Each structure stands twice: as structure tokens, then as C-alpha cells.
């Protein structure tokens, strides 16, 4: 799927092309995703941990481990009361550089939760490949509002090649 002109939501602060830098998931992100958009494709960039390689990972699916859900409460009419959130992540980009990146299942942790070694072993046993903090609630809100999501999780300390994002989004 083309990411041309996709919205970029960047939680890492490392993509200067993005006009949507956020420190954490919250109301401004929700508002952005519920605003009208002709092309409902969003690139979400988040920091990750417990990653097997030092390069960015493409998110193929997620497990919500936050203990919460951003859709709790009265339903926003932009989407269904019970949204099906599968088929939301974009995993094929037809871009050689992006398609060769490792991919896997992100475990979306509650902010400031750092799993112990024993807990991380359990999470891996249950299907988690790496962890992040802001992507999962963002994706749920995006899916509810009808967006497709291309998600990149970048190990802390590693740099995301900005040219890659620019080439893909045209920004």
C-alpha cells in the first residue's frame, strides 16, 4: 500500500519531516486521528525495547498489555462501538529497504512498565517480539476511525533513516 502523503505521528522526535511530534499518546493524538482526512493512512513511529536487532522493526500485529483501552467510554461516532482492529497494520510496502526490515508482534506496555527478565520470557512465550509504549493506543484509535497504520518501532538509541520516511511519504 502506498504511503504517499500519509500522516506521520512520531513519538521519537527523530523525524523532522513529521509535523506531528508527540511525547506520549493522549488527546492531541486522538483529535488528530478523528479529524477529517482524504487519505486515511498514518505512519506511526515509536521507540521500542527488548528488540532482537538494532534496526527499526515493522509492526505486523500487536498485543495490548496496557490494561486500558482508549475507546472506553461513550462511543465516538467516527467508528463502530466494537471495532474490528485486524487488517489495520500495513506490512507490505513494495520498498526494498523497508521490506527487508525485521517485523514482528509489538507488546504495547503501560508507560513506565519495564518487564523483568522472567516477565519478558513469559511475554515472548505468549507471542510478543518486542515492546513499545505509545503505538498500541494510537493504533486502536486509528483503526476505530478507519485508518490503515504503518508502524515502525525504533530501538532506543538507534536512528531512523529520515530519507526512508521522506521517500515513502513524499514529505
Amino acid at each position: 500500500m502506498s504511503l504517499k502523503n500519509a500522516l506521520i505521528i512520531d513519538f521519537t522526535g527523530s523525524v523532522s519531516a513529521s509535523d506531528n511530534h508527540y511525547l506520549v499518546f493522549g488527546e492531541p493524538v486522538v483529535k488528530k486521528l478523528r479529524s477529517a482526512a482524504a487519505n486515511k493512512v498514518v505512519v506511526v513511529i515509536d521507540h521500542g525495547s527488548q528488540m532482537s536487532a538494532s534496526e527499526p522493526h515493522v509492526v505486523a500485529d500487536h498485543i495490548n498489555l496496557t490494561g486500558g483501552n482508549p475507546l472506553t467510554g461513550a462511543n465516538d461516532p467516527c467508528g463502530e462501538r466494537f471495532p474490528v482492529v485486524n487488517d489495520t497494520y500495513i506490512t507490505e510496502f513494495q520498498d526494498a529497504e523497508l521490506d527487508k526490515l525485521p517485523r514482528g508482534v509489538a507488546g504495547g506496555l503501560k508507560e513506565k512498565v519495564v518487564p523483568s527478565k522472567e516477565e519478558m520470557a513469559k511475554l515472548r512465550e505468549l507471542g510478543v517480539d518486542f515492546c513499545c509504549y505509545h503505538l498500541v493506543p494510537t493504533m486502536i484509535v486509528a483503526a476505530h476511525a478507519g485508518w490503515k497504520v504503518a508502524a515502525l518501532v525504533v530501538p532506543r538509541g538507534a536512528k531512523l533513516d529520515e530519507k526512508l520516511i521522506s521517500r515513502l511519504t513524499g514529505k
Partner: protein
Amino acid sequence: MKTDWNIAAKSLDNALGVIKAVCHETPKVAIILGSGVNVLIDVDSPQVLPYEEVFGLAPTVSGHAGSLTVGRVGAAQTLVAIFRGRFHLYEGHDWSVVTLPTRVIVEWGITKLFVTNAAGGLNKQFQVGDLMVLTGFRDMQHPKLKETGLVPALMQPATGCKNALTEQILRTGADLHRENAEIGALRQGTYCACLGPSYNTLAEIEMLRRLQCDAVGMSTVPELLTAAGSKTQAAAISVITKVWGDGKPMGGHREVLEASHAASSRLDKSFRAVLREL
């Protein structure tokens, strides 16, 4: 909105007062019905109270009628309280609101409670329309998990909830199946309560299977936890409204309601048979 709802909700004493002003006898059995599940429609001498009158608020979700019916069932004229619909955490309600109907049941002195829900089947042996008696559960929706995240809950084993009432349902279900093979055998297994309202991702489904959960939904555990340790014995039954399989598309809430409705007649027969035995 959340604050308004929780302010609007009546206290336990107020809710019970509204009920007792109309119903002067304590029912023998209470039933809480979940999404699209409809049983014991034609009870004798019914008294119907809307939830708004009893609890000060009504469920916001389609498939939850939001009324309390007290009436008599069967030759023994067993007095039954049927709570048609429930309040959910995903609606934004506090734990105290979600558990209010069960607390009313306990305080009213009803000693037997049946809880039903619509659930997604994780066990690949299950089929749409199956009824699963809960023999265990996992709680992944408790408000305390908002503070810690789910990781501590994943490190714990499932909680067993088998008791004399679940045994009775299983026995009665087996008898019904023997008498009429068209009434499928009851399933039994572990139910996982997730917060919702979004349905699970495929990775989450796989995780729950690895945790040996057999069905997943968004309710019931608050009711079971509330009844536990009280004089009210509780048993729960899931109506399996979809089963995730390789390549099968995910259905939405409409499919859930249709499957619940279709399974309701079997559940109705099971309840009437269990009530005869009580």
C-alpha cells in the same frame, strides 16, 4: 460522561428499595443475560422494571434490553429474577456500577445466580452456537490493571470457578443431550474477560490460546468476583458467537447478536431443565 453515569447510578439500598416496593418475595434464582441472549420470555405473573427505574441508568449497548423481570417458571412456579442486560467497564462505568446488579442480587438474598454472556470461541473444537459452562476465568479487565498493565495478570494462573451449581448445569446439560441429540453437548472451559470495546487482534487471540483460554468476552468476571465469598452461588455460561480460525474473517457486533439469538432457545431449554432440578 463517565462522571455523569456514575453519579446517576443509584446506591445499592436505593436500587433494592425500588425492587422490594414491587416484589415482596425473594426470588430463588437470578439470571443476568448478556448480549443478545434472551431466555425465559414467557414467565408467569411477570413484574417488569426498567433499569433506569431500578439503577438510575440503562445499558448503552444494543442487545441489552435493560429491564428486570421477576416472574414464575415451570410447574413448581419457581420465582426467578431475570436481569436483561448489564453494565460494562468499556462503557465507562466504574466497578461499583458494573457490579451493582450482582450486589443487589446478593443483598436481596437470592442464593443462586446464573450469568450469561456472548463470547468468542478460542478453543478450535468449539462451534458457533455452542454453550460453554465456565470452569475457570482470567481477569484482564479489572480497573486495578489500569495501574499496573496486564503483565502481572499474565503471570498468574486462571481462577477456578467450578461449584455445585456448575456441576448441576453440566449434569442437566448431559441429560438433555442424551434425551435429544439435537441439543448439543455443553462445553466447559476457561473464559477470559478483556476490557474491550475493540475486538482482539489476531496476536491477542493467539496469546489467549497459549494461556489455554477457551473463550473470550468483555464481561461476567465482575459478577463472579462479586458473588464469590457471598451466600450467592454463581455459575456462568458463554454463548459462543464466533470461532476464530485460520483465514476466517472477523465478524462484528451484529454477528454476535445473531448467534446469541440463535442459541437462546437451547439456553432457554437448559435453564428450564436446571430450574426443575433446583
